[in-house]
C-alpha cells in the first residue's frame, strides 16, 4: 500500500523528493558573513539581555580559534563561513502572531504540503506544535493546557526573556560553549529553538513536538533546544524535519541539551528527512548536530530515538552522560543513506554513576553510492560499579557500490561493569526477496518490507504517529535501489 501511494505521490510531484519546494516569502536577513557584528545583530534582533550577548560573543571568539573537525568519515567541499547568512526571519512575524489566523497563509500552505496541518494535529493528535519556520517560531499551541500543568514550552528566545534564571542555570551545562566547532558556532549565532521545562513530579500531558524547516536560500539554521525535566517529571519530545529542494549546500548546526534530574525521564524522538541532494550527489543539507543528554539525578532516564533518512551529510552523535546512580540511557537509531549521502552517526554512553545502564540499537542501511558509518563510545568510569551496556549494531548493504562502517569504542575501568557489543554486516537475503516477488509483491515494496523488518526494533520505540511516518519514509528513501 505505502509503496503504491508513494509512487503516485512522486509521480504527481514529478520529483523523487516529496518535500522539494520553496515558499516565496520576503525574508529579513542578517548581513552576509560571520563577525561580531553578525552576533550582535542576531542578539539585538532577538531583544536579548546583555548577559546573553556576552555569552554569544564569548562563543564567537572561541570559535574563531577552533578548527573544523575532520575525523568523521564524510567528505565535502570546504564550507565558506563568510559566504552564508546566519539569520533569516519571516518579516510578517515582527509582532508575533496571537493565533493561527494571524499566521501568514503561505506558511500554513507550506505546512499543509508537508502533511502537518496544524489545526488537525491540534484537534486530532493532541500534539502541541511549536513550529519553526526558518528561524522564528511562528505558532505555539496548547500553551494554556501546558501552563495549567506548569509545563513551560516556548521558543528559546522567549525563555531567555521570561525565564532567564532557568536558562542561565542550564544553557551550556550539558554541551559547553567550547564543546566542539559546530556547537560553538551554534552558541554564537543560534537564532531560535525550543525550550521545555517540566516541573517536579509533573508528567507532561501531551507529546511535545517541533517541526523544523529550513527555507530561505543560503541561510544556515542554528537551532538551540533545551529541555529540563525536574525531579520525577516525564516528557516526550518529537522533532521532525523536512526541507525544500535546492542545489546549494546548506549548513545546519543545531545543539540539543537535555537535563534529567532525579527520577525524571526524557524521551526524544527525531525523524530527519532533509533534502539529501539529488541522485548525482548535488546539493543537500549538511547536518552537523550536537545532541547530548545529562542524567544528572539518580534514577533518571534519557532515551534517544532517531530515524535519519535525509541530509547529504549527517554528523550526529546523540549521547548520554549517566551521572546519577541507577540512571538509564538509550539510543535507538535507523540511518538510511542512498545515492551519494554520507552518514556518520552513533552515540556515546558515559557511565559515571553506580548501577547505570545503557542500551544501543543501531540499524544502518546503505544503498546507491552512499557511505554509512556507526561511530559509538561506551565508557565506564572507575566509580561506576555494576554498570551495564548492551550494544547491537547491524548494517545492511544494498548494491555493491555503497559502504557500511562500524567503529565502536569500548573503554572499561570498572571490574564490575559488563559491556557487550555485537555487530553484523550483510545484504538483503536473496531468498527473502525471492519469496516476496514470487507472491506478487513488487520489488520496491518487497525491499521496503524487508528493510522495515530489519529496523523493527527501532521503529517500535517511536511514538505512534511518528512510527507510521517513519515506516513510509524508509520505503521512499530506498525506492529504486535494487535492480
Amino acid at each position, binding site marked *: 500500500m505505502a509503496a503504491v501511494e508513494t509512487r503516485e505521490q512522486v509521480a504527481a510531484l514529478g520529483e523523487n523528493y516529496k518535500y522539494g519546494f520553496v515558499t516565496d516569502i520576503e525574508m529579513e536577513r542578517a548581513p552576509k558573513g560571520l563577525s561580531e557584528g553578525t552576533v550582535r545583530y542576531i542578539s539585538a534582533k532577538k531583544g536579548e539581555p546583555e548577559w546573553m550577548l556576552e555569552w554569544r560573543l564569548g562563543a564567537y571568539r572561541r570559535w574563531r580559534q577552533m578548527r573544523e573537525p575532520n*575525523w568523521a568519515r564524510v567528505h565535502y567541499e570546504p564550507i565558506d563561513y563568510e559566504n552564508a547568512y546566519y539569520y533569516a526571519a519571516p518579516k510578517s512575524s515582527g509582532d508575533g502572531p496571537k493565533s493561527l489566523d494571524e499566521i501568514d497563509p503561505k506558511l500554513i500552505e507550506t505546512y499543509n504540503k508537508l502533511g502537518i496541518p496544524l489545526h488537525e494535529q491540534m484537534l486530532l493528535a493532541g500534539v502541541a506544535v511549536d513550529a519553526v519556520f526558518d528561524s522564528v517560531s511562528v505558532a505555539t499551541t496548547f500553551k494554556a493546557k501546558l501552563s495549567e500543568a506548569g509545563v513551560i514550552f516556548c521558543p528559546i528566545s522567549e525563555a531567555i526573556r521570561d525565564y532567564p534564571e532557568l536558562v542561565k542555570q542550564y544553557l551550556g551545562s550539558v554541551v559547553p560553549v567550547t564543546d566542539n566547532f559546530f556547537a560553538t558556532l551554534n552558541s554564537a549565532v543560534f537564532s531560535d529553538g525550543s525550550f521545555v521545562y517540566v516541573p517536579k513530579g509533573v508528567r507532561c500531558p501531551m507529546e511535545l513536538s517541533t517541526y523544523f524547516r529550513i527555507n530561505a536560500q543560503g541561510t544556515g539554521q542554528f537551532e538551540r533546544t533545551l529541555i529540563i525535566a525536574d525531579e520525577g517529571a516525564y516528557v516526550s519530545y518529537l522533532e521532525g524535519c523536512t526541507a525544500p529542494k535546492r542545489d546549494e549546500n546548506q549548513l545546519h548546526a543545531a545543539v540539543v541539551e537535555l537535563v534529567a534530574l532525579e527520577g525524571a525521564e526524557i524521551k526524544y524522538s527525531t525523524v530527519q528527512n532533509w533534502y539529501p541532494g539529488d541522485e548525482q550527489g548535488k546539493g543537500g543539507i549538511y547536518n552537523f548536530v550536537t545532541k547530548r543528554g545529562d542524567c544528572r539525578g539518580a534514577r533518571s532516564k534519557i532515551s534517544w530515538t532517531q530515524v535519519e533518512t535525509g541530509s547529504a551529510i549527517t554528523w550526529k552523535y546523540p549521547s548520554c552522560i549517566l551521572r546519577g546512580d541507577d540512571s538509564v540511557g538509550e539510543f535507538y537509531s535507523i540511518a538510511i543513506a542512498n545515492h551519494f549521502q554520507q552518514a556518520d552517526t552513533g552515540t556515546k554512553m558515559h557511565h559515571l554513576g553506580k548501577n547505570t545502564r545503557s542500551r544501543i540499537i543501531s540499524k544502518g542501511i546503505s544503498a546507491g553510492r552512499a557511505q554509512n558509518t556507526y561511530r559509538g563510545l561506551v565508557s565506564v568510569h*572507575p566509580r561506576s560499579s555494576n554498570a551495564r551496556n548492551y550494544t547491537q549494531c547491524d*548494517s545492511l*548493504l*544494498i*548494491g*555493491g*557500490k*555503497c*559502504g*557500511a*562502517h*562500524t*567503529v*565502536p*569504542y*569500548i*573503554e*572499561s*575501568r*570498572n*571490574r*564490575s*561493569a*559488563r*559491556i*557487550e*557489543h*555485537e*555487530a*553484523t*554486516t*550483510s*545484504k538483503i537475503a536473496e531468498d527473502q526477496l525471492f519469496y516476496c516477488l514470487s507472491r506478487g509483491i513488487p520489488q520496491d515494496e518487497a525491499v521496503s518490507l524487508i528493510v522495515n523488518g530489519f529496523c523493527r526494533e527501532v521503529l517500535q520505540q517511536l511514538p505512534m504517529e511518528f512510527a507510521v511516518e517513519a515506516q513510509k519514509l524508509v520505503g521512499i528513501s530506498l525506492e529504486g535501489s535494487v535492480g
Partner: protein
Amino acid sequence: MSALVLPNRRVEDWKYSDLRNAIEPAAVESAPTAEWRVDVSGAVEQSPLPEIMPHGRHGEMGVVAAARATSGVFLHIGKGERGTAHLELVTAGHGRTLIVVEDGAMLTLREAAAFGDFANIAFDVVLGVNAQLDHIREAAAHNDAVRVSDYSIRLAQGAAYRAHFADFGAKLSRTELHIALEGEGAEAHLSGVSVLGDTGHADVTTHITHAVGNTQSTQLFKLIAGGKSRGVYQGKISVAEGANGSDSRQTAKGLLLGERAEIDLKPELEILADDVQCAHGAAVGDLDPESLFYLRSRGVPESEARALLMRAFLEDAVAEIADETIRADVWSRVEAALAELSA
C-alpha cells in the same frame, strides 16, 4: 632536523598506547640496530636483508624501524619446502625482518619478544600461492620495557596465515598487524591472549584488508587485566569494493580483575562490498557470578573456582595453536601468569 614526534594518545591509532608518555624521543633516536639469535631447521635459508624490500604497509613505528635499522634477518623457504624457524631478539633496538614463504611452502615461526629497554621491529612477511605460515609469538612480562612490533603480511591466492600472540605485558607493548589478503582463497586466522598484572600494558592492533573476494579471516582475542594494568585490542577489517564472498569474524573479550585496571576494545568494520559476511563481537566484564556460584555450590573454593573460570576464559584462544608442543609451552606460561595474578 626536527625532533622525532612519537605517536601519542592524540593520534587515533595510538589512543590507548601513548608512546610519548612511555619513552623519550631521544631514547628512540639513539637506539641501536637490533640483533637476533636465529635457529632454523628444514629448508629455511637465512641471509642478509636484500637491497630491495617488498612494499608492505606499516604503521608509524614500523616505518621508523625500517628507516633506522641498518641490518636485519631474512628467512626464505623455497617452493613446496617445509621448515621451522625460531627467532629470539638478543639486542634490543630498531630491527627489520623479512620472511618469504614461496608457493606451496610451509613454515612454522616461533618468536620470542625482546627484553631490554626499547625494541621496535618491522616485519615484512610475503606468502606465495598456497603457502602457509604458522606464527607464534610470546612476549614475556617486562614492566620496564617498551616494545613495538609492526608486521606487514601479504598473502597470495590460497595462502594461509595462522598466528597466535601471547603477551604478558610491558611498560608499553604494542603488536601491530597489517594483513592484506590479496589473492582469492587467502585466509588469516589470528588468536591471542594478553594476561596482565601490576602496571602491565599490552596492545594488539590489527588491520585485515580483504582486497579480493572469497577471502576469509577470523580473530579471537582474550584479555585479562589485573592490578593497574591496561589491555587494548583494536581490530579493523576492511573489505574492498567488489571483494564479494569475503567472510570475516572477529571476537574480542576482556576480563577486568583489578580495581584500577582498564580494558579498551575497538573493533572496526569498513565494508565496501555487499555480498559479504562480517560480524564482530566484543565484551568486557568480570567473571560470571552465576558460574562462580555454580562451582562454589559444588564445593569448589572461591579462589580455585576463579582460577578455573579464568583458564576457561583463555582456553579457546590458546587452543587455536595447531602445534601441540608449542601450545603446551604457551599454556604453561599462561598458567604461570595466572598464578601470579591470583597471588
